[in-house]
């Protein structure tokens, strides 16, 4: 099992909280797309003989591309890799890009899953975040999408200073009522070097309130559970059968190839990532020498990652797996250290499986760091 990620680094405008790699200039779009195609050729051996089961267009805003452009990227992927016939092929899209024609084009190009960046159904919040779409587009885009795609996920953001608990409920209910089968819900995070951070520093924006974020997260978990969604990862909820196969493969430690500037790849031993600069990326790909950094994972890195990631998932951390891969000492160590979290009600243990409770999910990072080697 393996996956391919394609990074489309273009956006209409910059959302205030965003720290992804993107540009608002489409100047080099054609060169960049060519480079992406070229990179899939250069890297065609990276995943070995494993069939590719998921393909993911992320960004940036891939929905800015025409369906012809998407089609030719997919074609390059198919040419260079062996793709499972039932592969999940996801496209990230923003509501303002969604039209009937585009939807049909994407579908015929092979896209079978849409990830829609809604974030909120409230005008004032969308403005506050400097999103490119408005509340009406959010709703209409989504409604339209449901007519052609049944496998849809959408993003929602909670914990912004404007969002009351009532508004949060409204956002979640709207998604549920529209029959969206998968939700990714993110706490608004003030990242380094973002306009939001700057504005908070200058006191032009209120800072986020951690307690409120915790509360809205707990509410969310409660609401979605009542509606039959599985909380299968910290930020991800799905109706049975609708989990993101692509993202799940990250959490299962599967191999993946990332194509495009800033994209990361992993093959079980090393992780590498392309430079987050469009021009240098294009140039280096054209010269056949992709500019990137590599990190070889030590066993310690690997077990730490395993702890960190598995605790975030519904499956939890399997101590038997730890025992099998890293040995008895590690298992015993973890078992002992987990005890106080179990006592405190942050985790539960069923046989060899340790899973975080809702309260534990709220503190997944702190707990993971504590369990690190």
């Amino acid at each position, binding site marked *: 099992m393996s996956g391919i990620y394609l990074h489309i680094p273009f956006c209409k405008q910059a959302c205030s909280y965003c720290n992804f790699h993107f540009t608002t200039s489409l100047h080099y779009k054609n060169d960049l797309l060519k480079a992406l195609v070229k990179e899939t050729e250069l890297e065609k051996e990276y995943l070995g003989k494993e069939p590719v089961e998921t393909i993911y267009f992320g960004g940036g805003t891939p929905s800015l591309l025409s369906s012809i452009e998407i089609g030719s990227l997919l074609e390059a992927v198919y040419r260079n890799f062996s793709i499972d016939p039932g592969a999940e092929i996801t496209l990230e899209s923003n509501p303002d890009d969604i039209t009937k024609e585009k939807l049909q084009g994407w579908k015929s190009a092979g896209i079978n899953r849409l990830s829609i960046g809604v974030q909120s159904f409230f005008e004032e919040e969308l403005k506050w975040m400097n999103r490119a779409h408005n509340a009406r587009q959010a709703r209409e885009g989504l409604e339209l999408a449901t007519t052609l795609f049944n496998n849809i996920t959408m993003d929602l953001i909670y914990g912004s200073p404007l969002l009351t608990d009532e508004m949060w409920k409204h956002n979640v209910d709207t998604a549920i009522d529209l029959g969206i089968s998968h939700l990714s819900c993110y706490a608004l*995070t003030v990242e380094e070097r973002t306009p939001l951070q700057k504005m908070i520093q200058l006191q032009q924006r209120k800072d986020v309130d951690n*307690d409120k974020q*915790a509360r809205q997260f707990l509410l969310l978990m409660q609401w979605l559970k009542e509606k039959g969604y599985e909380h299968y990862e*910290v930020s991800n909820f799905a109706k049975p059968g609708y989990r993101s196969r692509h993202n799940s493969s990250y959490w299962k430690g599967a191999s993946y190839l990332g194509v495009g500037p800033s994209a*990361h790849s992993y093959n079980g031993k090393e992780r590498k990532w392309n430079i987050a600069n469009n021009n240098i990326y294009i140039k280096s790909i054209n010269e056949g020498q992709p500019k990137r950094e590599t990190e070889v994972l030590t066993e310690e890195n690997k077990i*730490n990652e395993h702890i960190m990631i598995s605790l975030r998932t519904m499956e939890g951390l399997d101590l038997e797996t730890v025992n099998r891969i890293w040995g008895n000492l590690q298992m015993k160590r973890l078992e002992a250290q987990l005890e106080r979290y179990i006592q405190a009600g942050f985790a539960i243990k069923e046989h060899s499986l340790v899973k975080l409770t809702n309260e534990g999910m709220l503190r997944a990072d*702190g707990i993971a760091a504590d369990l690190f080697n």
Partner: protein
Amino acid sequence: MKNIRNFCIIAHIDHGKSTLADRLLQTTHTISDREMMDQVLDDMDLEREKGITIKSHAIQINHKHKGEEYILNLIDTPGHVDFSYEVSRALAACEGALLLVDATQGIQAQTISNLYLAIDNDLEIIPVINKIDMDGAMIEEVKDQIIELIGCKPEEILLASGRTGIGVDAILEAIIDRIPAPKGKEDAPLQALIFDSVFNSFRGIIVYFRIVNGVLKKGDKVKFVSTNQEYEADEVGILKLGLEARKEVKTGDVGYIITGIKNAKEVKVGDTITNALNPTQEIIKGFQEVKPMVFAGIFPVNTDEFEELRDCMDKLQLNDASLTFELETSQALGFGFRCGFLGLLHMEIIQERLEREFNQTVITTVPNVSFIAYTTKGEKIIVNNPSEMPDAVKTDRIEEPFIKAQIITKPEYIGNIMTLCLSKRGILINQSYLTQTRVELVFEMPLTEIVFDFYDKLKSQTRGYASFDYHPIGYREADIVKMDILLNNDKVDALSALIHRGKGQEFGRKLCEKLKELVPRQQFQIAIQAAIGAKILARENISAMRKDVTAKCYGGDISRKRKLLEKQKEGKKRMRQIGNVEVPQEAFLAVLKLDE
């Protein structure tokens, strides 16, 4: 031998000893211009950073005067109260002392105490008014103060500036003319006083000595009298900016010896070195045992580093004979050492030297003075550690060490100083005007009250115009209690403190507040309580972290996030887990920061 002069420079802190030493070394070409820098003898990183001398430093000067060659052995000494033991050892290797007085400051508390030390050692005193280049220099006034203090003639007082070099030639001349040459017999059996030692990781232990009688040659079989161990003198020599090997070192001279000793325990400062084949019958009177003023625990942050720490403590003790320590076990912190220090600065410096020179991350616990407890059964127990305090019901009485404190200040600060000292349970014994603008106040005070923040408070209450010196004057009965700190209801022995009952309430409250500040929020709620016996006096809560999780963890986030958490974990390694609670290193010294 008649052309050897051994002298040290003594003064109150910052009166310019090391700077004047620079000029002496420069004028006599002992140090080349290339090697020269400000306070060149302060060669420890910590000394340079803090701008103060911590250790005495010996160096030999060759100087031609009126056609004759002289050997001048100079020892620069520290001025801070905590290090007066360093001064007293330096004095034992000298026949004379330059007593410096800052022309803008006049006589200060350590001017007086160091002077008395020198007089006790029968040293020839050369008074020097220093820093006369400064605008605020009060030469005449300071002259009067000096005459009053030592009873010398006005012409005997030299004027100098270590900054500009004025007066340096006159000082050299006075050293040669006024300080007597060492006495001693070159043909007598070897008798040398060990006055210092350092550990060098390549060469082992380097011992500094002053020869009183006889000659020490390379290759000699020597004996260290009090340890009764024999060695071969692998290398002997004199002290320049570095070590300079010689074939022999003679009577009256200051030098070093390397014998390949690696074990710190084999060298005792104050011991006599003699020739093993032709030993002396007399040992030189060594030094008074240093009396530590405060005690605190030092523990490795990681329990498994105890053995390593022990080794480092042994080595550090070689560089610092005033450090004492013995094994301590704490429920909270495991194995460590109960250490005796000369004062809080000394304690801080030991901790820093362990970290820098020996790469040891340590936890230092609440310092306390040494109390004496008498039990109802009539036993006498020395209490250097809160855990040694007997149960209240079994205690008949407790005594605490008292000191006599001399404070020299300007008349306008008398009121503030009185208020401060009375709040510290001080008793005014005497008040006298040294001159119209200088007053000496003498108090009797409990030592425990000056250990913590007295010095800083004194400075701030007098805008720095007060100097302070103290001497122990014995023990007195006192109402001392043990205050315990509980974290989530578990007593943490390493945080216990011995305090005066009358201060319990306030102390407990402030300590809890401080701990709340120093202990970071964690996954669990933390209750901090201060208690005397079963009675809770103060309480603070640190609420649990509400949310500690990042939203995204996809392909590109994994490495970044792992590194972040790995760093967080590293930070935790500087903390000690006590029950449920991670306690950072600095929290154990919270008592010292109560007023910040």
